[in-house]
C-alpha cells in the first residue's frame, strides 16, 4: 500500500502493546472474587413478562443471583427520572415487565464461573403476554413522524420542490438497510462497588467521562465516586458513544451480589443491545438546465428508531451546502419500530445521506451526458450557500483532480458498458463526502520533567485511530521533545476532562488542549530560564536544577474561539473507485481505490492514512456486503453472526491509495487540522454504486450491491 504525498514516520505509540497482547481490554481484567453475568434475552418482540421462573437457575451450582425487574436493587436515578416525560428516554433495564424489542434482557444470571452462568441462564423460564410487533420498515413507513426535536433538517432555500420545474430532472428513491457496527471486541463491562457508595468499572467506551456521568446520575452518587477505566478499546465505530442499559445492569448486579461482576455480551447480542446504523429511506429530486446548472435540490429522508426513544442523525444536511443551487429543501422524519435504539455508526447519517445525494448527482450527470466531475465543478460551492459565509478551507476542486489522475479517470467512458476484460465489465465511479470539522472543549495536564520526559494526561479515548500517537506528535511539534520521551495518558475518568471520541473531533479538541498545554510549558520554561539568567535553549535539566524544581506542570483548558461562527468548517473526502462486475455471476470486485482527504494539516501521517484505509474498508462493506436482516414474523435478526453478517475480508480489499491535501486550515484549531474519522467512509458507497453503473448500466439504489441485485 502506498501513501502518495506524505512520508510515514511516527509509529503508533501503543502498536507493540496491541500486537503483543500487552494492551489490556476491559474483558481481560480480573478482580479478586470476580463473578460472571450472562443475560437471559426476551424471545418475544413486544408485550409483557408474565412470569420468571428462576428457581432451577438459582439452585444451579455457583449461581449467586438471578437479577430481574422482580428483585433488582434500588436504582435511584430510574425513580427520579419518572417525573420526566416518557417515552423519550433510555430503556430502564430490569425496571418493568414491558418488552420493547426481541432480545431485550429479561434477567441476568450471575455465577462464580462463566460456564456455570451460561448453563444457569438456559434454565430460566420466562412466560410472556405477546403483543403484535412492528419491525418491518416498508410496511410501517406511513407511521413516520417528525422527531420531537425537529432540528435543522427541515430546511428551505428559495422555493421547495423547485427541481420539478427544470429542463432536466431526476427523482429517485434510495434505501439503506440496517447495519451493525460489529467491532471485533464484544461489548460489556466489569463493575465493582468498592464501598456502598463508590464504584469502579472497566468499560468499553468512547468516553470515560460520559460513562462516569451516566453511572453517577443513574445511581445518584457523586461523579468522583465513579471511576471509569477504558485504556484500550477494540473498535467502537460509534456503538460505544453511550452507556447502554446493559452496562447499567452490570453495575446493578455488582451492587446486588456485592462482588465484581463481568459481563461480555455475545455476538448475536451485539445486534440488539448496543445500537446499529438505522434503516433509512431517501428520496432525492434534482433539477438542472441543459448546461448542467443545478436549479433545485430536494432531499427527503426517513430513518428508523426505537419505540421508546427518538434517535436522529444528519442524513439530509450535506444536501443544504454541498452544491450551489438557488432552491433547496430537505426534510427528515423518524419511524419508530419495535427494535433497540440505533446509534451513530461511522460517518453516521452523513454517510447514509451521501449515498443518496452522490448517487443522484451521478444519475444527473449521466442524464446531462456530462462527466460527473465536470458536473460537480459546474455547481461547485466556493462559499457555504446554506449559511452564507466562507468555508474555513475547502480544496475539493484540487482533490477531484488529484484523485482522478491517480485512479486513471481518463479511462472512464461516459456511456456505461464500454470497458471490458473478459467476462468482467469494468467501471469507474467517484463521489464526495463531507463532515463537520467540529471542535469542543478539553483540558490537558502536562508535566515536563528535568530528565526531558513529558507526561500529558486527559480523559480522552482511543477507539483505534491512534489518539495517543497524534497527541504525542502535536506535543513534539510544539516543544521539540523527542516522541519517545512523551507519554499521553487517556481512558481514565480521573484525568482532566475531555469529550467522548466521536464526530471526528478528538484531534481538533484534545489536540488543541495539548497544543495549549505545551505552549504554556514552553512559556513557563522560558520564564524560568530568563529569571535565572539562562537561555531557553539551555537543557531543561539545567534550567530546572537552577530553579530547584524536579519538573514543571500546567493544567490547561482549551476551547474554540469565535471563528466557529464566522466560518463554515468542514472536512471533505473524495473517493474514486474502479470496479469489476462479472456479467454472468453478478459478483462485484472493487479493484482500485483512491481516497483523497481534504482535512487540513495532517498531524500524524501514518495513523491518518490508516483512518482513510479503514474508512474505505467500511465503505466496501456498506456498498457491497453489510445488511442486518430481521425476520419480521418474529421481529428477530436472522444473520446475527460473523459468518452471515458480512464485513469485508482482506480478499475484498484492493490496495488503497490515500492522498492528503495537507494544507493547514487557518481557523479550525492551532494545528490547522480537521477531523477525518468520518469522511474516510462518507460517500464511499456512492462511488461504488456509481462505478457499478458505469460498468453495467445498472443503477442499484438499495444497498448492499449483492450479486442477486446485479442479476435481477
Amino acid at each position: 500500500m502506498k501513501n502518495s504525498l506524505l512520508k510515514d514516520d511516527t509509529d503508533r505509540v501503543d502498536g507493540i502493546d496491541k500486537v503483543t497482547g500487552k494492551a489490556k481490554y476491559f474483558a481481560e481484567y480480573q478482580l479478586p472474587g470476580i463473578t460472571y453475568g450472562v443475560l437471559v434475552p426476551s424471545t418475544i418482540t413486544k408485550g409483557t413478562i408474565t412470569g420468571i421462573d428462576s428457581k432451577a437457575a438459582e439452585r444451579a451450582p455457583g449461581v449467586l443471583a438471578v437479577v430481574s425487574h422482580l428483585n433488582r436493587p434500588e436504582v435511584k436515578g430510574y425513580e427520579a427520572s419518572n417525573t420526566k416525560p416518557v417515552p423519550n428516554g433510555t430503556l430502564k433495564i430490569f425496571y418493568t415487565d414491558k418488552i420493547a424489542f426481541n432480545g431485550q434482557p429479561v434477567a441476568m444470571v450471575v455465577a462464580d464461573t462463566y460456564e456455570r452462568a451460561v448453563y444457569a441462564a438456559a434454565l430460566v423460564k420466562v412466560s410472556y403476554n405477546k403483543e403484535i410487533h412492528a419491525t418491518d420498515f416498508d410496511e410501517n413507513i406511513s407511521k413516520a413522524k417528525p422527531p420531537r426535536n425537529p432540528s435543522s433538517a427541515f430546511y428551505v432555500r428559495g422555493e421547495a420542490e423547485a427541481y420539478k420545474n427544470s429542463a432536466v430532472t431526476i427523482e429517485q428513491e434510495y434505501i439503506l438497510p440496517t447495519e451493525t457496527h460489529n467491532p471485533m471486541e464484544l461489548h460489556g463491562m466489569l463493575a465493582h462497588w468498592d464501598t456502598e457508595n463508590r464504584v469502579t468499572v472497566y468499560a468499553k467506551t468512547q468516553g470515560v467521562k460520559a460513562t462516569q456521568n451516566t453511572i453517577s446520575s443513574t445511581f445518584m452518587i457523586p461523579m468522583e465516586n465513579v471511576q471509569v477505566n477504558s485504556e484500550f478499546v477494540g473498535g467502537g465505530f460509534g456503538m460505544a458513544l453511550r452507556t447502554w442499559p446493559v452496562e447499567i445492569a452490570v453495575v446493578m448486579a455488582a451492587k446486588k451480589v456485592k462482588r465484581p461482576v463481568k459481563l461480555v455480551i455475545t455476538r448475536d447480542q451485539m445486534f440488539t443491545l448496543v445500537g446499529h446504523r438505522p434503516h433509512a429511506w431517501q428520496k432525492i429530486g434534482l433539477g438542472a438546465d441543459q448546461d448542467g446548472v443545478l436549479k433545485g435540490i430536494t432531499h427527503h429522508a426517513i430513518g428508523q428508531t426505537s419505540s421508546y426513544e427518538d434517535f436522529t442523525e444528519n442524513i439530509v444536511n450535506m444536501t443544504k451546502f454541498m452544491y450551489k443551487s438557488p432552491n433547496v429543501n430537505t426534510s427528515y422524519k423518524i419511524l419508530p419500530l419495535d427494535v433497540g435504539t440505533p446509534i451513530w455508526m461511522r460517518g453516521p447519517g452523513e454517510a447514509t445521506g451521501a449515498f443518496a445525494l452522490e448517487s443522484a448527482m451521478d444519475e444527473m450527470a449521466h442524464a446531462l451526458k456530462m462527466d460527473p466531475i465536470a458536473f460537480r465543478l459546474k455547481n461547485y460551492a466556493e462559499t457555504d450557500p446554506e449559511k452564507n459565509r466562507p468555508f474555513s478551507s475547502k480544496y475539493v476542486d484540487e482533490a477531484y483532480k488529484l484523485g482522478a489522475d491517480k485512479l486513471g479517470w481518463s479511462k472512464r467512458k461516459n456511456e456505461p458498458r464500454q470497458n471490458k476484460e473478459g467476462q468482467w465489465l469494468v467501471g469507474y465511479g467517484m463521489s464526495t463526502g463531507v463532515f463537520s470539522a467540529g471542535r469542543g472543549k478539553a483540558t490537558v495536564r502536562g508535566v515536563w520533567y528535568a530528565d526531558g520526559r513529558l507526561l500529558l494526561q486527559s480523559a480522552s479515548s482511543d477507539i483505534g485511530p491512534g489518539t495517543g500517537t497524534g497527541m504525542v506528535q502535536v506535543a513534539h511539534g510544539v516543544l521539540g521533545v523527542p516522541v519517545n520521551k512523551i507519554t499521553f495518558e487517556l481512558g481514565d475518568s480521573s484525568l482532566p476532562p475531555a469529550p467522548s471520541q466521536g464526530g471526528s473531533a478528538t484531534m481538533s479538541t484534545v489536540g488543541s488542549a495539548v497544543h495549549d498545554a505545551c505552549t504554556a510549558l514552553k512559556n513557563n520554561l522560558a520564564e524560568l530560564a530568563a529569571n535565572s539568567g539562562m537561555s531557553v535553549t539551555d537543557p531543561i535539566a539545567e534550567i530546572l536544577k537552577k530553579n530547584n524544581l524536579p519538573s514543571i506542570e500546567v493544567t490547561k483548558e482549551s476551547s474554540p474561539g469565535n471563528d466557529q461562527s464566522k466560518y463554515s468548517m468542514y472536512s471533505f473526502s473524495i473517493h474514486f473507485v474502479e470496479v469489476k462486475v462479472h456479467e454472468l455471476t453478478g459478483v462485484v470486485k472493487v479493484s482500485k481505490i483512491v481516497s483523497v482527504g481534504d482535512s487540513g494539516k495532517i498531524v500524524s501521517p501514518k495513523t491518518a492514512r490508516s483512518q482513510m484505509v479503514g474508512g474505505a474498508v467500511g465503505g466496501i462493506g456498506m456498498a457491497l456486503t453489510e445488511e442486518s436482516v430481521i425476520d419480521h414474523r418474529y421481529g428477530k435478526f436472522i444473520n446475527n453472526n460473523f459468518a452471515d453478517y458480512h464485513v469485508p475480508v482482506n480478499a475484498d480489499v484492493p490496495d488503497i491509495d490515500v492522498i492528503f491535501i495537507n494544507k493547514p486550515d487557518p481557523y479550525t484549531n492551532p494545528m490547522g487540522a480537521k477531523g477525518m474519522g468520518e469522511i474516510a467512509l462518507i460517500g464511499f458507497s456512492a462511488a461504488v454504486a456509481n462505478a457499478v453503473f458505469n460498468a453495467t448500466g445498472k443503477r442499484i439504489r438499495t444497498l448492499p450491491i449483492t450479486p442477486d441485485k446485479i442479476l435481477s
Partner: protein
Amino acid sequence: MINFQYIRTTTSKAAVDSLGKDKTAKFIAGGTNLVDLMKRGVTAPEKLIDINNVPLKQIELKGNILHIGALATNAAVAEHAVVKQRFPLLSQALNAGASAQLRNMATVGGNMMQRTRCGYFYDITMPCNKREPGTGCGAKEGYNRMHAIFGTSEACIAVHPSDMCIALAALDAQVVIMNPKGERKISFVDFHRLPGATPEKDNNLQANEMIIRVEIPLNTLAENSYYLKVRDRASYAFALVSVAAGLELKSNRIIKVRLAMGGVAHKPWRLTEAEAFLTGKDATEVNFKLASEIALKGSKSFGQNNFKLKLAPNSIIEALNQAKSKA
C-alpha cells in the same frame, strides 16, 4: 455450558465401539462446526469421543485410487502435491471453503458431517424441522436467500454447506465407512440425503458408523477443471451457488464431463443429465447454455432465492468456460 464427558481413542475400532455404547455420544475431530453447535444449544452430546489420535490422516495414491483418510485436514489435502496435480478440482474447492485457520483444523470426515448453515437451524428459538422435527420450516416463508432450489421438501429447504463435498461428488468418489461388523463402501453422491420427511438426517451414516476414508479414482479431467464459487464476499462466506466442473477434451470435443453444484440442494447436486447431454458434443457456449438449461429442470425457488434460477445456470456456463479455457 452443559457438562459432557470427554474421552480420547486411538483406533477406529475403539472409536466405533464407544460410539455404539452411547446414543448421545458424538465424535469430535477439528470441532469447527460441532463446538459452534454446542455453544448455540443446537446439539448437546453427553459424551465427546476425540478421534484426533486415530491414524487416519493418510493421503496416498494406491494404484489408480487416491486414498484420503477421514482425519486428513482440509489444508493438508488442499496442499498435497498429488491432489494439486491430479485432482486440482478438489484442491480448488477446499481452498474456496472457510478460512485458512478453519482449514487447518477441519478434517475431511468432519467436512462431510457439517450441518447446514440455515439461520433457523442455528437459532433454537425459531422453528426448524431439521433441529426439532415437527416444529415447521422457518425458512420456507422467511429469510431464504441462501436456500435450496433442488430436491426440497415440505419439511426443509436447507442447503448442504460444503465446498469439498461438491468436488468429491463430481469426482466419482467413494466413502469407506466402518461399523462394528466391518467396513462398507458407498458412492459419495449417495452419502448425503435429500430432506424428504426426515430432514433431521443429513446423510446415510448409521448411528454406530464412522467415516474411515474417501477414495477417488484417477481421472482424465485434471487439465480442464474449475471450481467456481459465487458468494457475497471474496472469502469466508458460504456459496450462493458453486459449480465443480471437469472436462476431458479432444480438440474441442467433450469426451467426458463431470458437473456438480453446491448451494442449491440439501446434498451435493450432481448434474447427470447435463453431463449426458454434453458428452460427445463440442465445447461451445451454445452447448454450455443448453446444458445449463437441462440442469435447471425441476428447480423451484422460494422468493428471496429466486435469483438462483438465473445465477445457477449462469454459473454452470461460467464454470465450463473456465474449465475449458484452462487447456
